[in-house]
């Protein structure tokens, strides 16, 4: 499934981030492919906030549509 389809509070594993620069930036933030995070907040039709440990990242809707995740 896509990151966009997550519901609040769900834990997930990142499967793939297609964009090169976004992937590099995500790894710096601590969100490499294969890592586990929680969907913290969904702004209606807007960005999605995910959290890993204490790190919170905001992803625009377009990005959330492109990132492949799986529920755990």
């Amino acid at each position, binding site marked *: 499934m896509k990151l966009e389809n997550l519901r609040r509070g769900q834990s997930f594993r990142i499967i793939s981030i297609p964009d*090169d*620069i*976004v*992937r*590099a*930036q*995500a*790894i*710096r*933030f*601590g969100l*490499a*492919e294969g890592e586990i995070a929680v969907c913290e*907040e969904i*702004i*209606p*039709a*807007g*960005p999605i*906030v995910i959290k*890993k*440990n*204490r*790190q*919170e*990242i*905001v*992803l*625009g*809707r*377009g*990005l959330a549509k492109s990132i492949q995740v799986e529920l755990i």
Partner: protein
Amino acid sequence: MAHCHDTGLKLAIPENVKKIVLAGNPNTGKSVFFNYLTGLYVDVSNYPGTTLEISHGKMDEDVIIDTPGVYGLSSFNDEEKIARDIIINADIVLNVVDAVHLERDLFLTQQIIDTGVPVVVALNMVDEAKRQGIEIDYQALSSLLGVPVIPTVAIKGQGLEKVKNTLHSATKGRITPGLKKSLTDLINRVGSQGEALLVLEGDEVVASRHGILPGKERDKVYMERRKRVNEITAEVLKEVRQGASFATTLGRLMIKPVTGIPILALALWLMYKAIGVFVAQDIVGITEETIMIGMYEPAIKGLISKYVTLDSILGQFLAGEFGILTMAPTYLLGLLMPLVVGFYFFLALFEDSGYLPRIATLTDRVLSSLGLNGRAVIPMILGFGCVTMATIVTRILGSDRERRIAIFLLGLTIPCSAQLGVIVGLLAGVGIKLTIMYIVVIFSMLVAAGTILNAILPGKSTDLLIDLPPLRIPRLANVLKKTGVKSYGFLKEAAPLFALGAIIITGLQVTGTLEVIQNLLAPITVGWLGLPKEAATAFVMGIVRRDFGAAGLTSLSLTSMQTVVALITITLFVPCIASIMVLFKERSKKEAAIIWSASLVVAFIAGGTVARLANIFSTGNEVNIFAVTIAFVLLSIGAIAVTKISRKKLFSTFRV
């Protein structure tokens, strides 16, 4: 070997002096270290080709150089490029790490260690980490990284002296496992481990400096490094407890639309009270009226009249109505500077408290329908201060496409503080219904212009990808320093533009061109906008200074509807001459010319449309304002729809 190890900063640093570079993620408290280490004597230089100011100062015999906060070293944006060049050429790096975000911050730490530069780590904000239930074994961290680690609470001065004394014991740390082999080959070709690492990680800029192709190992190196950092973190970090604090709850409320919008409204209202009322009226009253017009201008005119008569052409250029030594400094220093300082102060406050990224999150949805993303909220807010400043700040946006859209919207629809003051004054006289109509019309234009540009411009805008730092109470000293540095940067960049603007306008005036333009505009003013001929003067004066334009309307006897039509036109009309200058400086000549003429045309179309609608929806002397407003909104929606449909058609024709 050839000299390619240039930090970009033109600093005269003698051979025996060590370059100590401060590095860290954004908001780790680097500046406190910088201030402590350098004391009072700090130089700020502009990094070539960017707006970024780099501070540097002296510590005993050594030079301390600050770098922009970044999450990693590469060429993704200006901040990173600068930090990268300064760091890989450092003798010693003092890496400031946020103890609360160890897992994130250590990525940069490990990357710096991988460049082979000697490092000292300051593990900052250990008190806050402790409060949040995080315990870090800093001795274990030190032996895992292979560099000295000093726990600090910088804002309370704890650990700073120890950091200073440890700087010269900086060591080259333990590089990411598996990296050594790939690096050794490259080091022989490019000369330094730092550059070799960046080439390996696919940094195109560094690779092209050495005339070689960038490596394709970024993913692999990044993953290895991330793995290593996660292992280190797991080993040294102990979480005692994790409870939701008040800051966490407030932070969440700030990004949910239901609560976030009222909070944002409150913040903007406070900002308006502080800047729109206190600064714009009380402070500017002193700086513009008393100091600049009351004291400075007579003095400078007196001085100049000793050498040239003020009526002569040279006198006009120097000290005339739009003189380079009279209007330009009065406008820039007396009126704009206090407002710019006010805006930068609030921006720094929002930034340091961690509120800014939350505003970006909240507004991302709306802005992305205009082809922008949440980050664009920064230039948009600043635009209400000064469009010239905001246009410069659009450099922070992720793509050229976004800059194009943002610059157009700023020039077209955002009234700057100078103009806003006069507009508010004039609107006070026309009543609430027409005021609402004015706001709705301008807002519709913003939405329509943004949506249409987003639909017709090729390419795709970038998505929001930011981290949410914890909410913190900002430190006043830091906020003031940021405000000072940014305001000074604006002044340095804008002063020549305002001077050039003054020269052009005086040139137009003494040659009589200003009058010719006014006469040329007259038919449109009378025939299309339904305004008296003299209103054309106000429009042209609006180019000189946006507030002149609006102020020029006060002397005309206009009906309420005419006033609003004129205000709408003037708001949308070309920005002031300084922002036209900055437009031409920031964009290609062709694009600037298109943006400029497009905003002219759009302004007259919108103003005229309102005038026409007012004619249609009037019975006798009564104008149905509600109907005019609704009709305008519907026309805007129609324009958006037509663009989108015709674009689809265009695409399907191409496909066939």
